[in-house]
C-alpha cells in the first residue's frame, strides 16, 4: 500500500487517534477493536497545554462541547482526538455541518461539555447470499483491509476483514465464489520479514490441504507484495490452485478505491485460472475494467501510486481478467497446472541475507561489514550487465572465501545479467559471484534466502540458484518482455488518442 500512513504512531493500547485516518491494506492492529471511549483521553494526542485545559474543564475527546474563543466567537461541536501532525495544542472540533476545524487552546476563554456522542458506524453488513454450488475461495488477511466502514461522527475508519464485510463491499463476489476469510496478521507491508513469508506459506498449505478451496487470495500491502509473492512461489509447489496476492493503491475507505475491483479480479483468478502458482492480480491500466495476473517471481511494483503500478519484468503477465465480464484470458504458454497430488511445502527462509545496491563510489567496507556480521548471502544490484566498482572485487572474493554466497543482479531491472562480456564481469565470476540471470534483484534476494535455508554449501547454492524452480529464470529473453518506449508519441504534438 502507499506509504502515506507512516506518520502514524506505532500501535498502542488505544488507537482512537490513529483511527481518525483512513487505514488501508497496510493498516495497523486496529482491526475490529471496539471504540474504547472511557480510555479516550490517554490516546487523545493533545499537547500539554491543551491537555491541561481539557482536564480542568473535565472534557474528554468525543464530548460534545461548547467553547468561546478570545474574539467572542462561540463554537459548538464534538472534540476529536488530535492528528499526529500539526500543533498538538490546537483542539480539533467537528462542527454540526460536518467540517473539522482547529481551535487554538490558548485562545479558549470558556469551555464546557454539553453532551457526548456515540460512534455511528451505520448498520452492520447484511448477511451474504452467495449462490450455492460455487467454488470456494479462502481469503487471508495480512495487513489492512478490503472493506472498511467510516464513522461519520468522528471520521474514524474501521477496517473489516470478515467474509460478510467483503461481500458487503463487493456484492459481485456472491456470484463468483463462496468465500471464507481469516486474518493471519495485520501489519504494514514494509514490516514483513522472511518469517512472515513462512507463516503465510504454512497457512496457505494448510488451507489447501484441509479445506480444498479453488484458490487462496492473500490481501497484502502493495509495497513488498512482490517479495512475498516470490517467497510463496519458492515455498509452495504442486498446488491445487493459485495463491493470488492482491492489494490496493487507493485506500479502501474511498469510493474510488481499486480494492474492490482488484479483489474481484483476484477471486476470478482463484476460481478460473488453469495455473496454480503464486501470482499478483492488480489493475492493468487506469481503467477499472482490466487486470493483469503477474507471476509472483516476475512482478515488481514500478510506480509509487498508480493503480497499474505492478508490472511483469522480463516476462509478460500470465493472464488478464476483464470486468464486468469476469473473463480470464491466459497469455502464458507454460505454467504449473492445478495439481491433485498434494501440496509440497518447502518452507523456511534464511534471514541473514542482504540486498545491496551498488552505486558509484560505493565503499567496499559495506560488503566487508556484512561478511563480518555473519551474513550468509548477499545480493548485489550491480550496474548494467552486472558490474561493480573495482574496489569491490576483493571484498566479493573475500566474502565467497568465507562461505558467503554473492549473487549479482542488475539495477537495470530489465534484461539479463551477463558476467562474460566485460572484464569486470569476468573478475566477479572469478571471485565467485553468481549471476542472477534474468531474475529481478528482489526475486534473487528472496530466492537466495530460500536456498540458503536449504543448503549453505556454495556449490549447491550456485546450482539451486541457477535452476529455475518456479519459472523465475527464463532462458529466452523475448522481445515483448520489455514495453516499448514510443507510447508517449501519441500524446506529443497535441495528438489525440
Amino acid at each position, binding site marked *: 500500500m502507499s506509504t502515506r500512513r507512516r506518520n502514524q504512531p506505532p500501535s498502542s493500547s488505544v488507537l482512537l487517534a490513529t483511527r481518525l485516518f483512513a487505514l488501508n491494506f497496510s493498516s495497523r492492529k486496529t482491526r475490529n477493536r471496539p471504540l474504547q471511549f472511557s480510555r479516550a483521553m490517554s490516546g487523545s494526542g493533545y499537547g500539554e497545554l491543551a491537555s491541561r485545559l481539557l482536564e480542568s474543564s473535565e472534557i474528554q475527546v468525543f464530548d460534545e462541547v461548547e467553547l468561546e474563543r478570545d474574539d467572542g466567537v462561540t463554537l459548538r461541536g464534538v472534540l476529536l482526538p488530535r492528528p499526529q501532525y500539526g500543533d498538538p495544542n490546537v483542539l480539533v472540533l467537528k462542527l454540526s455541518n460536518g467540517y*473539522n476545524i482547529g481551535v487554538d487552546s490558548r485562545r479558549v476563554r470558556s469551555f464546557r461539555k454539553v453532551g457526548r456522542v456515540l460512534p455511528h458506524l451505520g448498520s452492520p*453488513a447484511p448477511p451474504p447470499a452467495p449462490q450455492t454450488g460455487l467454488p470456494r475461495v479462502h481469503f487471508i488477511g495480512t495487513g489492512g483491509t478490503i472493506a472498511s*466502514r467510516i464513522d461519520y461522527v468522528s471520521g*474514524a475508519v474501521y477496517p473489516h476483514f470478515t467474509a460478510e464485510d467483503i461481500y458487503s463491499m463487493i456484492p459481485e463476489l456472491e456470484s463468483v465464489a463462496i468465500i471464507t476469510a481469516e486474518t493471519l496478521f495485520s501489519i504494514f507491508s514494509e514490516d514483513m520479514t522472511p518469517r512472515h513469508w513462512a507463516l503465510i506459506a504454512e497457512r496457505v498449505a494448510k488451507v489447501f490441504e484441509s479445506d480444498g478451496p479453488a484458490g487462496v487470495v492473500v490481501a497484502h500491502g502493495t509495497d513488498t507484495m512482490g517479495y512475498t509473492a516470490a517467497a510463496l512461489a519458492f515455498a509452495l509447489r504442486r498446488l491445487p490452485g493459485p495463491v493470488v496476492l492482491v492489494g490496493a493503491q487507493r485506500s479502501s475507505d474511498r469510493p474510488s478505491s481499486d480494492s474492490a475491483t482488484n479483489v474481484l479480479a483476484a477471486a476470478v483468478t482463484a476460481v478460473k485460472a488453469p495455473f496454480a502458482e503464486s501470482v499478483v492480480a492488480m489493475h492493468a491500466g487506469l481503467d477499472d475494467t482490466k487486470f493483469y495476473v503477474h507471476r509472483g517471481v516476475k512482478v515488481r511494483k514500478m510506480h509509487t501510486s498508480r493503480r497499474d503500478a505492478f508490472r511483469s519484468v522480463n516476462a509478460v503477465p500470465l493472464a488478464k481478467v476483464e470486468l464486468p465480464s469476469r473473463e480470464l484470458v491466459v497469455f502464458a504458454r507454460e505454467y504449473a497446472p492445478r495439481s491433485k497430488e498434494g501440496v509440497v511445502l518447502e518452507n523456511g527462509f534464511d534471514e541473514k541475507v542482504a540486498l545491496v545496491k551498488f552505486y558509484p563510489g560505493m565503499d567496499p567496507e559495506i560488503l566487508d561489514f556484512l561478511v563480518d556480521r555473519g551474513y550468509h548471502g548477499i545480493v548485489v544490484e550491480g550496474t548494467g550487465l552486472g558490474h561493480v566498482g573495482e574496489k569491490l572485487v576483493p571484498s566479493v572474493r573475500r566474502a565467497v572465501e568465507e562461505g558467503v554466497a554473492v549473487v549479482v543482479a542488475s539495477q537495470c531491472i530489465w534484461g539479463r545479467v551477463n558476467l562474460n562480456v566485460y572484464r569486470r564481469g569476468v573478475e566477479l565470476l572469478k571471485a565467485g559471484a553468481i549471476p542472477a540471470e534474468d531474475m529481478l534483484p528482489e526475486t534473487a534476494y528472496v530466492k537466495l534466502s530460500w536456498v540458503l535455508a536449504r543448503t549453505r554449501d556454495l556449490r549447491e547454492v550456485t546450482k539451486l540458484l541457477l535452476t529455475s524452480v518456479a519459472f523465475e529464470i527464463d532462458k529466452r529473453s523475448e522481445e515483448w518482455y520489455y514495453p516499448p518506449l514510443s507510447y508517449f508519441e501519441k500524446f506529443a504534438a497535441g495528438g489525440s488518442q
Partner: protein
Amino acid sequence: MSVKVGLEIHQMLDTREKLFCSCPTSLRRDDPHSRFRRWLRLARSELGELDPAALFEYMKGKSYLYESYVDGTCLVEMDEEPPHQLNQEALEIALIVSLMLNCKVVDEVHVMRKIVIDGSNTTGFQRTALIGFDGYVEIEGGKVPIATVCLEEDAARKIEERESEVVYRLDRLGIPLVEIATGPTISSPEQAGAVALRIGQLLRATGRVKRGLGTIRQDLNISVEGGARVEVKGVQELELIPKVVEMEVQRQRTLLEIRDELRRRGVSREQLEVKPVDVTDVFKGTSSRIAKKALASGGVALAVKLSGFARLLGRELQPGRRLGTEMADRARYWADVGGIFHSDELPGYGISEGEVNEVRRLLNCGEHDAFVLVFEERRKAERAVEAVVERAREALEGVPPETRAANPDGTTRFMRPMPGKARMYPETDIRPIVVGEELLARIRELLPEPPEAKYERFVKVYGLSPELARKLLRSYRLDLFERVVSTVGAPPSLVASTLEDTLVDLRREGVPVQNITDEHLMGLFELFAKGGLVKEAIPLVLKRLAENPELEPEEAVKQLGLTPLSPEEAREAVRRILNRMERMIRERGEAAFGPAMGAVMRELRGRVDGALISRIVKEELAKIVGGS
C-alpha cells in the same frame, strides 16, 4: 406570507495552480488526449445511509469515463497520486474573502472529504475545508449574516450522459472555489439580488477570482411560510436571482393553494394508489404519433387515476409550468421516460375525446378525478406511474423539499431529491494548516479598499459626481472601472458615465448590451486613450459591438466610419461645409452659428471632439463674417 432565502455562492479562484496539484486552472476546448473508465462504490452496509439522490445514481450502476490531457491534468486529478499540499495562494484568497465578509477565521484548517458518488470527482469525494464563519455582508437595508466560507475543489465537467455511462472531463476538477453561504434570512427577491450582487462585487474586488460565464454559480435555498426548503441550483446570471426567487415563491404559494383545494375536496393519501391500468387496447387505432410510436416498438399504455386532482394538474405554477409538468419531470428522472400526458391537457396531442372517455371509463374516473397516461416499455411505464403517484401524494403536503435547477427564464425544474446530510471524514493525505496571527496580519494588508474609502477616492481624486460614484459602487462593473482607469488612463468620469449611463441608456433602447464584454470595453477605452475615437463616438461603437460581438472595437470604429479627424482635417471639413452656406452666413452674421454648427455636426458627429469642433466653427464663422 413570509419568505426565507439563503444564498450559496461558488466562485472559481484565479490561481496559477489547482487546489491540490500544480496543474493549470484553465478549461480546454480541444479534444482530450486520453480516456479511462472507473466505477465508484460504497459498502452495501452504507447504502441505507445514503441520501436518495446519491443512492439512485449509484444504483444505476453507471461507469464513469474520464477525459484527460497530458499537459493539463496530472495523476492527482486522475486519482492516481495522492493530493499535494493545499495551494497557499488559494488559501490566501479564501482568507481575504473571509475577512472581507467580516468572518471569523479558523485557527487551523482541516481538509475534509465530502462523499460525492455521481462520478464528478474521481475520488468519490470532494475535498473541502472550512476557512471562515460567522460573518456578515452589508447591503442597503441592513446586514445579512454569512454562515460559512469554505475553500473547495471544483468538480469535473460533465460532457455527456448516456444510458450506462457518464463522460466527465478532468480539466475543471481541482480548480479552487470559494463557497460562501449566507444565513437563511433574506426576505425578498430584491434583497436576494442585492446580496448576490454585493458578494459578487466583493469577490471581484479581490482581483483574484475568475471571470466569465461559469466561473460563478449561485445556489438558492428558498422557502415560503408553510412550504418547505427548496434548493435551486446553478443560477449563473446574477440578474436572474430576484426573478428565480419570485417565481419559486409563486410556485410554492400555488402548491400550497393546490394543497388546500385537495384538502377541501377531501383527498387522502390512501386514495392515491399506484394502480396502473393497462389501456393499450384503447389506443390500437390512435392518431397520436407519440402513442403510435411507443406501441409499435413494443411499449404499453398505462393509465393511473389521481382521485380528486381534476383541473389541478393543469394549474399553472410558473409561466408554462404546471403541476402536470412537475409530474412529468419526476417520471423522467425516476423512470427515464420521454414524458406523460395528464387529463387536464387532453384531448390533445392527437389523443381523441373518445380515447379520453374510454380511459376515464376504464379507470372509473369521477368528475373530480384526473388521470395520467404513459406510453412506454412496460417496466419504465410502471416506474413512471409510481413517480407520478408519489408526486401526487406530495401535493397533499404542499411543497416537496427537493433540489431544482434554474431555467434561463427564471422558472425551475426538478433536478433530484434533496441531498441528505453531507457525509464527511478527514482528508488524511493533507496536513492541517495553522492560520497564525502572522499570516492574518499579512492578509489584512492585502484586503481591497472598503467601499466607503472607495467612494471617497472616486469623488475626491477622480472627481466623479457623488451620484455617479454611488452608482459605481453598486455596479457589477466596479472592478472593470478601476482596471480601465488605472491601466488605460482614460478619464475616470468618462469611463464611469459610459459604464453606468451609456450602457443603461443603450439597454433601454433595446440594444443587446449583454453581448458587450469587459474586453470590448477595455479595448474601447484603450482606443480612446490613443485617440482612436472621440467621446461622441462611444455610444455608436458600443451599439455596433453589442450587435456584432465578434468585432474588435477598432474594426467597429472603422466600419462606422468614425475614425477621428485631425484638427487640420476637421478645419478643412468645416471650411468646406461653411463655404456651402456662405450666403446664409453673410446674411445672418453671428446668429448663423446655430445652423452652421448643426450642419457640421450632421457630417462630423462622432469623428471630432465636440468642444474642438465648436471652437473651429466659431473661428471659421468669424473669418467669413469678418471678411465680408
